[in-house]
């Protein structure tokens, strides 16, 4: 059982739980914060959580593919941050505010 191993040996389960917790933190941020930039940061957090589980699987299943995926995810996350922040700056220039509700004006 996990409980006996909890403080004696670290296994895949530990990393997965850590990843899940980080993911939930990120998700809470996405759901609850109003500042668009904090939202973007929360998304980065979620992506990182996924990366943790990727690397953990890669290590414990002995496959390099997981690390490649992490590499790609990082790249895409950075690209997303760049474009997201560029958008945020545009919004800020227009409304002097980065509250997420201003992004609703993008519809229609």
């Amino acid at each position, binding site marked *: 059982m996990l409980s006996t191993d909890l403080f004696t040996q670290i296994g895949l389960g530990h990393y997965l739980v850590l990843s899940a917790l980080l993911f939930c933190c990120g998700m809470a941020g996405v759901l609850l914060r109003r500042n668009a930039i904090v939202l973007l940061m929360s998304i980065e957090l979620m992506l990182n959580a996924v990366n943790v589980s990727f690397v953990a699987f890669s290590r414990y299943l002995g496959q390099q593919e997981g690390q490649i995926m992490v590499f790609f995810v990082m790249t895409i996350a950075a690209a997303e941050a*760049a474009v997201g922040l560029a958008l945020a*700056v545009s919004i800020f220039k227009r409304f002097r505010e980065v509250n997420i509700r201003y992004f609703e004006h993008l519809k229609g």
Partner: protein
Amino acid sequence: MPLGGVLFIVVFLIAFGCLMLWLASKLGTQKIADPVKYQSYECGIPVQEKKDTKISVKFYLTAILFIIFDIEIIFMYPWATTFKDSLAAGQGLYVLLSMGAFLLIFIFGLFWEVKSKALEWD
């Protein structure tokens, strides 16, 4: 294990810094209260109270471009370490050309940025 060493030295450095700051605050001369002294230092003239400090968008544009090019450079690192091995394995040309294609995109991006004057500071 290097990680333990790194963590140890980080903790040590923080402790060292805090200790020094604490020492300095203890050893420092007594404070002489003067409201003007604690104002922001702006070369002596009265502090300008302005709501928004105008900061050029250029700074942040530079940072965005930095991210992008930084990642492209990071991509070259695994290539650079394996290049000689690939040569020995007889796949040199293939690996060289695949990185060549990537570099072509990189150069095109750089060229575009220069061309579009995104890197000009006025």
